[in-house]
């Protein structure tokens, strides 16, 4: 038994360690520093092993801590009409019911199980039971300190606090035993990752039961909860022999793991399939243009769904919001000065909004998967003048697509400013409109530029460039941080316009110098 436990641990650990090393290797600078025989180097292995060990401990406690802080205590403090202890137990009761069948461990097909049982042909029963036992013990140990700590703080009696972890484990054991029994009766093996419609409905109902009644001052009284908890501890104990004596673990695991593998294969192709699906099959689409303009025109027309239609929809929603705000101005005149103040200070906020609305990443992904992925294998397509010609056409087009919502937002902000009482400096209106348009152009240029300069995909349409992902994340972080920036609209707007103009110039120079070399399939 110790041996099985040890093997399954080291197996899980090995691939976790290799996973850590692999992701280290994806970081551009580290990539050069790390040796090729990375997976053999002892020091690195030890380091990754330490990380992996820390993760094992953290996952036992940190997960539970976050669970208590957010789901139980965090939401619990919102209810001021009932005693905190009663809310604490009430929420835990229902969440445990959900967890009992959403998080069984026994019916969760994972990679390590696949490696051990299918590839390495370990004894399925021994492997499953030992890992299950470990998971249940981990649950009890992980829950215990927080049940006591948080429970006592909420004035829950110590005895009940001590009972809680065993109640959680008991509920899981009970559900597992019932599922095994159902399997013996001829049902399909239960897969906690593939819930049906009814199961989701039950989850929804239990969630509602956990959080809605306390808002009205109603909780399940403790003279009901405590016996229920005791009952599940007993049924859990009674379930143990069933789980230990179940004979068909191999078959159950085979079935679950086959489903998982199926899912993993699909996930790999999913992005590609999704993008392929965006191609319109409308036979009426044609174009009168020639050469690259013809190619681009057909591309834009066959990708209406993710390009123009999406853009028009966003513009329409923005118009609708504008109309709504104007109505609010009319109904609640006091709000005008507030909005007026906001408009004069919170332009930085709109950097993030423009970031979120930009169609750039979807555009470049579709460009690659549905177009460049194949055409880049033809030599005519890679000739420098061709690359640049097409870049110019594409840039113009993506800017146009993004400008529509930008124009609505920019114009809308100017209208709002006027309607909320206006401003002394008429320049404000101009700066609002122009800076929003500039932001939109900036994002369009930005995405297409990094796509051409870093061309991150390989022939199998996998993302291969760490640098590209870092640039994307950095873009996100910068835009996100902008939300916290408070700066007069006039100043920020002018700075913003200057930056965008400068960036576009630099980007174009870089493209003309480097894109003919960088715009290649990665190998």
């Amino acid at each position, binding site marked *: 038994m110790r041996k099985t436990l040890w093997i399954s641990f080291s197996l899980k650990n090995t691939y976790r360690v290799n996973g850590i090393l692999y992701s280290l290797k994806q970081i551009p600078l580290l990539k050069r520093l790390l040796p090729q025989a990375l997976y053999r180097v002892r020091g690195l292995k030890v380091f990754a092993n330490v990380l992996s060990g820390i993760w094992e401990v953290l996952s036992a406690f940190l997960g539970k801590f976050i669970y208590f802080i957010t789901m139980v205590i965090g939401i619990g403090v919102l209810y001021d009409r009932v005693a905190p202890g009663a809310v604490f137990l009430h929420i835990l009761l229902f969440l445990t019911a959900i967890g009992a069948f959403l998080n069984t461990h026994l019916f969760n097909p994972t990679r390590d199980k696949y490696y051990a049982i299918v590839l390495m042909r370990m004894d399925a029963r021994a492997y499953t039971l030992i890992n299950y036992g470990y998971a249940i013990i981990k649950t009890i140990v992980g829950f215990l300190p927080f049940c006591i700590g948080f429970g006592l703080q909420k004035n829950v009696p110590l005895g009940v606090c001590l009972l809680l972890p065993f109640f959680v484990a008991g509920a899981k054991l009970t559900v597992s035993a019932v599922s095994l029994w159902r399997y013996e009766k001829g049902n399909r093996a239960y897969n906690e990752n593939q819930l049906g419609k009814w199961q989701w409905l039950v989850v929804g109902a239990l969630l509602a039961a956990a959080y809605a009644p306390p808002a009205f001052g109603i909780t399940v009284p403790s003279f009901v909860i405590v016996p229920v908890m005791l009952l599940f501890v007993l049924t859990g104990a009674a379930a143990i022999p069933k789980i230990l004596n179940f004979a068909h673990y191999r078959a159950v695991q085979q079935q679950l793991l086959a489903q998982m593998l199926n899912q993993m294969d699909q996930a790999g192709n999913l992005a590609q399939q999704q993008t392929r699906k965006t191609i319109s099959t409308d036979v009426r689409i044609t174009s009168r243009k020639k050469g690259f303009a*013809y*190619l681009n025109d*057909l591309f834009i027309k066959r990708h209406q769904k993710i390009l123009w239609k999406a853009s028009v929809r966003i513009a329409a929603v923005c118009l609708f919001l504008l109309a709504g705000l104007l109505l609010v101005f009319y109904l609640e005149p006091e709000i005008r000065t507030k909005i007026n103040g906001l408009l004069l200070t919170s332009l930085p906020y709109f950097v993030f909004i423009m970031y979120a609305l930009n169609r750039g990443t979807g555009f470049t992904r579709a460009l690659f998967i549905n*177009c460049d992925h194949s*055409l880049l294998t033809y030599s*005519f397509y890679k000739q420098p003048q061709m690359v640049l010609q097409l870049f110019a056409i594409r840039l113009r087009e993506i800017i146009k697509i993004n400008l529509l919502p930008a124009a609505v937002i920019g114009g809308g902000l100017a209208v709002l400013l006027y309607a909320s009482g206006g401003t002394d400096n008429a320049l404000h209106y101009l700066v609002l409109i122009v800076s929003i348009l500039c932001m939109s152009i900036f994002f369009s240029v930005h995405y297409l530029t990094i796509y051409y300069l870093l061309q991150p995909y390989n022939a199998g349409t996998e993302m291969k460039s760490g640098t590209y992902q870092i640039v994307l994340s950095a873009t996100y972080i910068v835009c996100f941080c902008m939300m916290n920036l408070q700066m007069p609209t006039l100043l920020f707007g002018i700075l913003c316009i200057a930056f965008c103009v400068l960036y576009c110039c630099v980007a174009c120079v870089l493209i003309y110098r480097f894109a003919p070399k960088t715009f290649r399939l990665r190998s």
Partner: protein
Amino acid sequence: MQFVIEHLSKHFEKREVLRDINFTFTEGKIYGLLGRNGAGKTTLFNCLNRDIKTDGGQFFLEDNDARREVKAENIGYVLSTPTVPEFLTGREFLKFFLEINASSVQNLKTIDEYFDFMHIDPQDRDKLLKDYSHGMKNKMQMLVNIIANPEILLLDEPLTSLDVVVAEEMKQLLRSLKGGRITIFSTHIMDLALDLCDEIVLLHRGELEAVDRTNLGDQSFKDRILAALREEEDA
């Protein structure tokens, strides 16, 4: 015309894939490039097509001792998995290709004549390429490379996954096209190489080496190839 490779080398991290490639290909012949899995056939093609940077060496075309650089338009590269722009129909792809290459295409024909030449059915010509079968995509890719009429045609395992009829059509086509150009055909199916190719070239231990066929029957020729490729293991 000759295609000359001199001292071409390429390594990935510490692994030398192409060590010191020296070879001269002559026009009018189909060369069968044989090598074991992972020997570097695709890497060699990618280097020649300038998809990846080489570490050193050069390659050029030579007519009557006059050297000229190999430009992108001199090379046609057909990949083992056919790649065609999914969002275009067969006809649109051809139209686009012909417009872009209008200045360089010789004996321009109508689009339908090209389709007829390639045995692509009329009802398939206006379907989106994403709905084409593997074999039809392969035909499209081959067609475009034939129209471009490159002096060097690189074919990476092109017949491996085609049905027997299409594979036979392609073989005939390659034979009919070999005049005036250098065709290099990579495969790891020996019988296919012997059937189609005029010369057999081995890629092993990072080097190219021609196998002399004079005075050898098919079986002893095969044995010699196998012996040469096996050496790698013993080395």
